[in-house]
Every structure is written in C-alpha cells, then in structure tokens.
C-alpha cells in the first residue's frame, strides 16, 4: 500500500514541471497578445495621458521580468491577481464560475455515458442490426452538428414552440435565489439545503444545455465503446471463454466489457478536457455563467491576470484528471500496476 502511495506521490511530482511550464508560457503568451490592456481599460474617450496613467495603475509600465517575479510571488501565496474586467480577485471569479461549468460538463458527460456506453456495447454485439445503424446515425449527427446550432435548435423546439423547457436564462430562473453556497454546484447545494423546489428548478434549467453537450460528446464515446467491444469480442480469450462454456452474460460483461473499458476511459478523459473548453458556445446560448465565457471575455479585453488564472486552473484540472485516469487504469486492469515504475 505504501508502495502505491510513493508511486502516486511520484506521479504528482511529475506534474510540477508541467505547472511551472504553464505558468511561464501563459505569462509570456498573454504579453505577446497584440492588444493593449491599458488602452482598452482606459475607456472610450481616453487620451494618451490617461492611457499612461492606466498603464501605471495596472503595473504594466514595469519591465517584464519584474512583472513576472511579482506574479510568481503572488502565485506562491495563492493569489492569482486581480481581474481588471470584473474588478475582483481572479480566484473569486474562478471559484464562482468553475462549478457552473463543471456542473454542466459533468451532467452532460454522465448523460452521454449513460446513453453512449450501452449503445456502443449493443451496437458491437448486434453488429449490422438496427441498433448499429441507430448508433451510426447518432454518432454522425453528434459529430456534425455544432453545439451552438443544436442548442438553438433545442431552444426553438422545446422552449419557443412547445413551451416545455423553462426560459433559457442560465442556471436558475430569475424568480429563484441560488442555494446557500457550499460546493457551488447548485444541484448538490440545493439538495444539501433540502430545498426540493430549487433542486428541480436547477434540474430543469440544466436539461437542455446538458442534452446539447451530451449529443456532442456522445459520438466519440459511443464509437470508441463499439470499436473496443468489437476488438475484445474477437480476441482469443473471449473465444476461450465461450469454448469453456461460460454463460454469455459473464463473457460479455465480465471479460469483454472490462477489457474494452480501458480505451473508453481514455477517451472519456480526452472528451472531458475538450468539452470543458468547448462548452463556451453552449454557455453563450444558454446564458450559462461558466468559465468558458469568462475566459473569452478576458481574452478579448487582454485581461492578463484573468487569462493566466484561467489557463492555470485548466492546467491543474487536466493534471488532476490525468492522475485520476491513470489511477483508474490500475483499478480496471490489474496488469497495470504502479510497482513497475
């Protein structure tokens, strides 16, 4: 057990150079952006003098190495800096917006896994049947329909025409007040507060955007499940298992599916990471106050601290995600251990 702890510790230590690299690169890249934040934030009517005053106020008049040292110094104290755009500490902004994005992304992924994995398995087992064709149609549609289009289409049908969905106004309709902050996930927080009304209101708001994202993420997961299942089903150990007379259920779920899970989990990790970045369009359509729209606004305004904070938060998230996936490999497949490292 301690061996595993050491292995995990080593794995975590490996992420440090990555994070240092991210800090350096995000700092340099934001400075390399062509916009001038001082000119932007000095306002529409600013003259050269007030732009200069703004530059001093933002600390951008100092030489770059000095800016970097100050940034790293703050970072070591857990201070991500102050966003000029929102006028608040970047950490506060991220803490408020990251849960919104995560709640949406995780529910979308959960939804798409619930559909895609059984669908992929079924399609592989009944290759060439109508299920297989359905899987193919869904996958093609999911890949080829851009999320902003699906989002607007769903709003048009379910909100505008049918009136089933609530107003697409973000995480909660304006008549509700957000639940007391515990985790930042409204579903969890309202459940903790025992507030069923807010819980269901949150859930209703979540359905359309989550479905939009789920349709988009369904494709790679379903395809990967199907392909991995097909490979597993045609392998020697399945033939052996079948020849040994094991019940089909045991063969399918006990051996084939478990082996097919590895590539699916890998894909899931990748899908999660790109969806977290890609859901900015869904956030815009559904007025979702997530981290994607925050980052885009910060980029447009060349709001350095906010952009750096976003990149760093994402990097940490990805590092964590990869760590979890690596660890879950060992759980799924005992052959992959940490001892070998």
């Amino acid at each position, binding site marked *: 057990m301690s061996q595993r702890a050491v292995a995990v510790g080593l794995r975590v230590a490996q992420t440090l150079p990555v994070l240092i690299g991210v800090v350096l690169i995000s700092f340099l890249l934001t400075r390399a952006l062509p916009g001038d934040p001082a*000119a932007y934030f000095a306002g529409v009517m600013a003259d050269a003098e007030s732009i200069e005053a703004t530059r001093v106020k933002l600390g951008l008049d100092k030489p770059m190495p000095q800016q970097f040292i100050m940034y790293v110094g703050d970072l070591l104290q857990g201070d991500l800096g102050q966003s000029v755009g929102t006028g608040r500490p970047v950490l506060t902004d991220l803490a408020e917006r990251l849960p919104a994005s995560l709640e949406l992304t995780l529910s979308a992924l959960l939804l798409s896994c619930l559909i895609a994995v059984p669908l992929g398995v079924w399609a592989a087992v009944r290759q060439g049947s109508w299920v297989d064709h359905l899987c193919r149609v869904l996958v093609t549609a999911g890949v080829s329909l851009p999320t902003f289009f699906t989002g607007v289409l769903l709003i048009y049908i379910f909100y505008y025409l049918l009136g089933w969905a609530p*107003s697409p106004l973000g995480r909660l309709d304006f008549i509700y007040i957000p639940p007391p902050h515990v985790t930042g996930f409204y579903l969890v927080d309202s459940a903790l507060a025992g507030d069923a009304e807010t819980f269901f209101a949150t859930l209703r708001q979540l359905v359309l955007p989550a479905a939009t994202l789920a349709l988009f993420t369904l494709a790679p997961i379903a395809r990967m499940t199907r392909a991995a299942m097909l490979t597993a089903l045609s392998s020697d150990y399945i033939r052996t298992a079948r020849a040994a007379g094991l019940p089909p259920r045991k063969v399918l779920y006990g051996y084939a599916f478990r082996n097919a899970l590895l590539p699916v989990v890998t894909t899931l990790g990748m899908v999660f990471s790109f969806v977290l970045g890609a859901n900015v369009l869904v956030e*815009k359509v559904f007025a979702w106050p997530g981290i994607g729209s925050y980052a885009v606004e910060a980029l447009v305004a060349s709001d350095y601290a906010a952009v750096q904070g976003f990149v760093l938060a994402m990097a940490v998230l990805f590092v964590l995600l990869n760590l979890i996936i690596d660890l879950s490999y060992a759980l799924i497949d005992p052959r992959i251990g940490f001892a070998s490292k």
Partner: protein
Amino acid sequence: MTLTTRRSFLKAGAASAAILPFLKSLPAAAQAAETLVVVSGQTINSLDLHRVGTNRASYQVAVNCYDRLVTFGRKEMPSGEMSFDYSVLEPELAESWDISDDGLTLTFKIKPDAKFWDGSPVTAEDVKWSFDRAVSVGGFPTVQMKAGGLNRPEQFAALEDGTFQITLDFPSKLALPDLAVPVPFVINSKVAIANATEDDPWAMEYLHTTPAGSGAFKVARWDQGQQLVYQRNDDWVGGPLPTVSRVIVREVPSQATRRALIERGDVQMSFGIPDRDAAELADELTVYSTPIANCINCVGLNTIFEPFRDPEVRKAIAFAIPYEAIFQAAAYGRGKPLWGGEEEINDIAWPRAFPYATDMEKAKAHLANSGFPDGFDVPLSISLGLASWMEPTALLIQEALAPLGINVTVEKIPGANWRTAALVEKTLPMHLENFGGWLDTPDYYFFWAYQKDRLFNSSNYFNEEVEELTNETLHMPVDDPEYAPKLKRMFEIAIEDLPRIPLHQPALNVAMNGADGYEFWFHRQLDARPLGRSST
C-alpha cells in the same frame, strides 16, 4: 428567515432588499405588475462608473442608482418615440441653479428633501466629494469632466445651506450639459469615506460592488455575469417615482436566445437588439429604433497614406460607395441615411447628409483626374467586435470599388486590438468607424473626430481652419450670432476634404413585450426609471 411566507414577504414591502437573499424564490405576485425583466447581451462589470475598466453596460448603474445635479428634458420625436432633449436642462438633485453674468460661476441649490438610501441628507459636501473624485481618479471620468471645463477639485466649493458652486476657467456652453451625463453622479460621501483606505482614498474597492447613492433604484442583488436586480427607492426626489418596484436585468449573450425570450413574452424588454431582429420583430412587438444622437457610421480615409492624400481619390470613393445597399444590408433600414444631401448648407443639423450619392460616372471622372487613374490596392480594416454592420458594409464597398481598379482586401481585426490600431496608433489606411458624442453639438463631434491627434480622428486629419473653428465654437453659446456661420464653414470643409465619409446614422434598437415608457438616452444604456408594465 427561510420560513418567511409569501404574504409576510409582501407585507415587508420595500424592506425586501435586505431579506431577499434569504428567500428561496421571489413571490409569484412580484412577477406580475411590479417586476420588469430586461435582457441584454452585455455584461455589467462594475457598479462604479469611475473605476478603471468599467465597461459601457455598467453606466446604467450610474443612471439608475445615482442622481446628478441636473438632467436633460424629454421630448417626443417626429417618429412618436420619446427621447432626451439636449436643449432643455431639468433639476434632478439641484432644486435651482444660477449662472453668473460672466458665465464663470455656477451656483446650485440642492433639494432640501433629497436623501441618500441610508436616510442621510444629500449635502453640498457630498457633491463636492463626488466631483473631486471624478476629476481626480483619471481615465474616462476625468476626460469626460474636462469636456465641460471641469479639471480640478479647486473649481468646486461646498457653500453653506446646501449650496454648491462651480468656478469655470472660461465660460462654456458644455459645462452645464456635461453635468447631466452619467459621470458626475453624487455619491454618499460619508459612507464612501468610512470605507476608504489609505491606498484607496476614493473608496474604489467598496463602491465597485456596493453603490451608495440617492437614485431611483437601489441594487438588491448583483450576480456578476448573470444579473442585476434593481429595487425601487420609494424616497426618491429626483423625478417621478418609477411605477415598477423591481427591475431585473438579466445577461443573455446569445442573440437567438434573447429573441426567443422576448417573443415568448417571458421577458418584457430586450435592450440593444440587432438591426435585423428589429426589422423582423417590428410587426409583432413594439420595437423602438432611435437614430443615435451625434453618432455616424462612416468610412475613414487615412490622410497619411498616399492614395488618400489626393482629394480626387477621396471624392471618387465617396461617389462610388453603394450607400443604399449598405443601409439595407448592414443596418436593415434602421437609422437615418446620410447621403444625397443638399449641396447648399442651410442649417446646422448634425449628423447631416453629405452631398454625395452613388454615381459611378462621377466616381470614374474624379479618379481619372487624380494621381491614381488606374486605381491601387488598399486594405479595408474592420473590427470583429462590430462585424455585424462592418462586415457587410466592407464587402459591398469592396465590390463597388473594384470597377474603378481599386482592389480592396478586407482585413478583420480582433476587438481588443481595434482600439489600439484604429484610434490610438491610427495606422489603418481605410477603415470603418462609428464614433458618437454624448454632448449633442456638432462642434463636440468635430473636437473628437476632426481635430488633430484626437482619439477618434482615425484619419489623421489636419486642417488649420477646422482646428481654429472647432476651438472657437466648442464653448461658444449656440445662440451666438457667429456660431451658425462658423459651423457651416466647418461642414463645408468636412464635405470638401472628406477624411470621413458618412454612411448612415446607426440606431439603438429596443424591443418591448409587455412594457412601456421607453425613452432613448444619448448614453445608449438602460434608463429603467420611466419604464412600466403594460397589459399587452
């Protein structure tokens, strides 16, 4: 507190702002006659206009939550829409005011019953502190104060008995109107000073999230990036009390979503809708499209670039531009045409139609006379942030100039770089521009857009006579007998020299479904005070 019933909530009435966060949901009744929901695509990033980095959408907080000494009057426009009236000044916090004969001293008497939200009276010291702040913090507020000749704290004095005095360095017709723009709003200085620190003497940190004013609305909730909830201040003395008790401004970035919401009637107002939606929704909803005062969408020809130094080239382009097609394709006919005007200048209306219209024969003749008879290659730069009107306009211009041998390549510049490239460095040879001035006089427009090195003079235009005339007219009273002749001369030169070719006056579009009372204001932001619910 969570157990508060809907009935007791209603009894609590105006005090609800304080208990609001403890309720799970607003009472259903509040949704009806008393609440108005507005959607907008812009985000409010601060509750303090004076802060560095406060964006345009946030100016509405200064309008709705704070008072100024004076405000503009209102008038009905020929289209039947209500608009601010630049020529009339009305009291807001000031009960009356007096201008000395030399025009240098403005004395204001503050309404004795004016109170801040915390119940303390509005005093001349508060006004002085707020004005000192506006001229001291730098950035946009300071620049805007300068436009009215307000430069230093020493110009402001709090006299006894609620009297406030401004001393000007020179008489200016812009001084009083500049007090009616959103910038010189009056802050509760006692509250602000109590929350100021040594590093932050103007309480920028505190007022950024916590307004302290005397305005018609208080801020009941602000969820940054999501919504702002205004709660009526029942003790407001600045004007007629708003008829709705709560206004919710919800941010919805997607145009399509905003349109679905207003069409369904789940929100009562969609502020700043695109021209296209305005044209399409005009039949089913109440849509206001008001030409924005003192604002012109124009083509800028940068006079430091060779082909555009030649006046014949500039005229050739002015005759080649397909104005009507641009007005229809880029503005969907919303706004006001600014082409094909009279040759003779008989009035001082501004923005005015220049005497150019699409005429390819004339365009060819002018180009033939120029130093570039065979045309030239030129990039036409547009801002991606304003692509909705700039892109179709640029494509139509590109198409129209091709027969003249002028090869236009459309260059798209991201929003963040646009300001730097177009306005600060002024390095774009041919570009589109849309400056609008808050103070509604032609000389004010010339000051920003035609004088050398001014921010919006993206064409690097310089003409000695225009410099001089602008300086002379800028602070001159409009009823001065010399004013109109001088302006006409300025128009003549602008029409002849053409550093900026006007296309049309853009419109601010607002759609209403179940609300009324909309008034257009020059700051182009939501003024929630006159709004009410209507039965439709």
